[in-house]
């Protein structure tokens, strides 16, 4: 046949005498043993050099290299040993179907019936089994108690932040901000005074250019908007501002929000705008919040439109 056989028979030995083959094999094994010995020696040297590196203060690259050489030496030595010196050997194990023999199965089934019947479980004491099962299930349910103790429920926490009517707008250092300090295209990460660094109250203040039309949903101070800085998609801080196009960009999954249009989603996977903070100026000219965000900040959740106190 032109097609090569998938399982060709082993080719018979060539025209060598038995003694020839034996001698050649011996030479091969001796050579392999020498190489394996070299590998193990290299491994010993590398392992010892690890001590030297350690004692002299440690160095990450040298430690990695020494470990590599040591283990590669051991591995290569063993590989030569098993492939050449030990050589190939084949064993054949019998295999039986996994299923037990019919006789074996039946014998066990009988035993099972007999012992269960004897214990009174199979018959009229079945109600005892049911009650025991019920006790087990109840205790299993009681396992939920320690799990529940791990933390409070969400209560209203997802519906409110630290922002409150009259809270001054401060930067990350806690410094209150005046409207006239903000120049167009400037962005500042802001917090309510007294809650600097707060995860759920973080907001981003953007200085608007006066020559661009705005479409905002909350009362604000001319030329300034403040939005929640938590992405409504997966909660990353919306940290990048592309002033030229007036877009806030979330670096995690690239949702973009238009700051001149109430932070509506322009592109990307976010499902709703960033909530806008209603702001005004107090008597001293500082920026203050008129209240909390009117909708939950951050990623959406199923009962978010039901109002607080779920």
């Amino acid at each position, binding site marked *: 046949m032109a097609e090569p056989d998938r399982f060709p028979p082993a080719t018979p030995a060539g025209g060598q005498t038995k003694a020839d083959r034996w001698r050649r094999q011996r030479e091969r094994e001796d050579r392999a043993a020498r190489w394996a010995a070299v590998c193990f020696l290299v491994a010993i040297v590398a392992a010892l050099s690890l001590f030297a590196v350690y004692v002299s203060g440690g160095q990450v690259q040298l430690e*990695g290299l020494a470990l*590599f050489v040591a283990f590669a030496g051991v591995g290569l030595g063993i590989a030569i040993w098993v492939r050449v010196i030990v050589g190939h050997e084949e064993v054949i194990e019998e*295999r039986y179907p996994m299923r037990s023999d019919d006789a074996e199965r039946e014998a066990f089934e009988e035993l099972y019936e007999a012992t269960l019947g004897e214990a009174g479980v199979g018959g009229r004491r079945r109600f005892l089994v049911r009650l025991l099962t019920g006790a087990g299930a109840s205790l299993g349910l009681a396992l939920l108690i320690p799990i529940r103790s791990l933390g409070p429920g969400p209560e209203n926490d997802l519906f409110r932040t630290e922002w409150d009517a009259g809270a001054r707008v401060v930067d990350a250092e806690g410094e209150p901000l005046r409207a006239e300090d903000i120049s167009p295209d400037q962005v500042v990460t802001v917090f309510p005074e007294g809650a600097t660094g707060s995860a759920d109250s973080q907001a981003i203040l953007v200085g608007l250019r006066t020559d661009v039309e705005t479409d905002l949903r909350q009362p604000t101070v001319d030329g300034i908007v403040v939005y929640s800085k938590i992405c409504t998609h*997966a909660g*990353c801080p919306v940290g990048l501002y592309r002033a030229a196009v007036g877009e806030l960009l979330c670096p995690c999954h690239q949702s973009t929000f238009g700051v001149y249009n109430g932070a509506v989603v322009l592109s990307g*996977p*976010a499902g709703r705008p960033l909530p806008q903070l209603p702001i005004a100026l107090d008597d001293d000219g500082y920026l203050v919040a008129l209240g909390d965000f009117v909708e939950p900040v*951050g*990623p959406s959740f199923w009962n978010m439109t039901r109002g607080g106190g779920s």
Partner: protein
Amino acid sequence: MTTTDEPRHRSALDDVARWLDDRLRLAEGSRRYWRKAFPAHWSFLIGEVALFSLVVLLFTGTFLAFFYVPDTRLVVYDGPYVPLQGQEISAAFDSTLRLSFEVRGGLVMRQIHHWAALVFVAAITVHMLRVFFTGAFRRPRELNWVIGVLLLLLAFGAGFTGYSLPDDLLSGTGLRIGYSVLLGIPFVGPLIGFIGLGGEYPGTDVLGRLHILHVMLLPAGLIGLVTAHLVILVRQKHTQKPSRKATNDNVVGEPLFPHQTLTSLALFAFTIAVLALLGGLFEINPVWLYGPYEPFQVFAPAQPDWYMGWLEGMLRLWPNWEFTVLGLTIPSTFLPGVILPGLIFTVVGAWPWIDARWITKDHDEHHLLQRPRDVPLRTGIGVGGLVFLLSIFIAGGNDVLASNTSTGLQTITAILRVATIAVPFLIGWIAYRMARGLKENELAVTAADPTRTEPASGPPR
């Protein structure tokens, strides 16, 4: 070995063995397993690489745990890394820096640990592909397939909890995303989130809890399931490629001792060698460059460990669909973050049953491996699924792709959206056609010459 009649010299080891056998009756069992047959093919060793990576993870991880402090309380950094000196950072981040810069051998251990985690998941994945495309999951091995899928899930969990521990800016961002997806679980999401963190995000308990999960519960689960995986493997014996000698009723291979033992030892040494080289020379997760986690800070591009890439990609690729129905909001992360991964893992876990019911319509016991061509439909679906995962994995780096190709991000995302839907079908169909062509060609040759061997699926039982 000599064959003289003289009694062998009795070494101390002999004495110990006899002492043990006197008490535990070990000779019989040892004799039985000493020559257990291990079919020799390189592809059977991939699972061993995963096992050895796990061993490396346990050893290096124990070392790291002696130094790590799972505490978010702030301390002033006064270590040798100049850019952070005097800065207030969490005790967890501080302990990670101390481990990296001040503990001798600490950095190499940390980096080997992280590299070993990446190799661990990679080896599991490749092992799984081998098992899938050769039909090794078929009856009676469905149980071990499911255990394998659970192991992969635990490996994901161990990886995620692990890289969240240093409390650096990247890990905090990953945690924030994970928490946000959790919030999207219907109704109980917020409750689970609050219970998990001990309060509203970020909470103060999260590191301690992640730590216990990472160093106790998940390793216990991994070790338990690996043990079950191996016990079942020994009980059911190995699968093998069909040959003149290897049939459905035997196992042909090299004996456990000395061949397989030495081969595995060599592979163990090679695995450690490669991980040490990676850990020593290739910097991984340089948390000092990311800086400490602040909930209001982030950097770009932020990329998770490779095995999280497909989940990340799905979040990036999914359209911004968010509906409010009957006063209930379906968050935009719900379908790509909760439903889709759940669906994928369910289908993968149930594959042995899907395969037997609809693909091969074969519920018999099999111990001989198939070649991908033997079941074209399975091969086509497998290749298609793989291309799908690869495509959303690429989408996980859409920002990197955009900045490296100077193509607009939205263009890249649009292309990837189309590609994710179309290309898997196309490549899957090509794989299916190729497998079918090869199979039909082979059947034609066999028909022309009946003396040839049977196709590889082996005789039905």
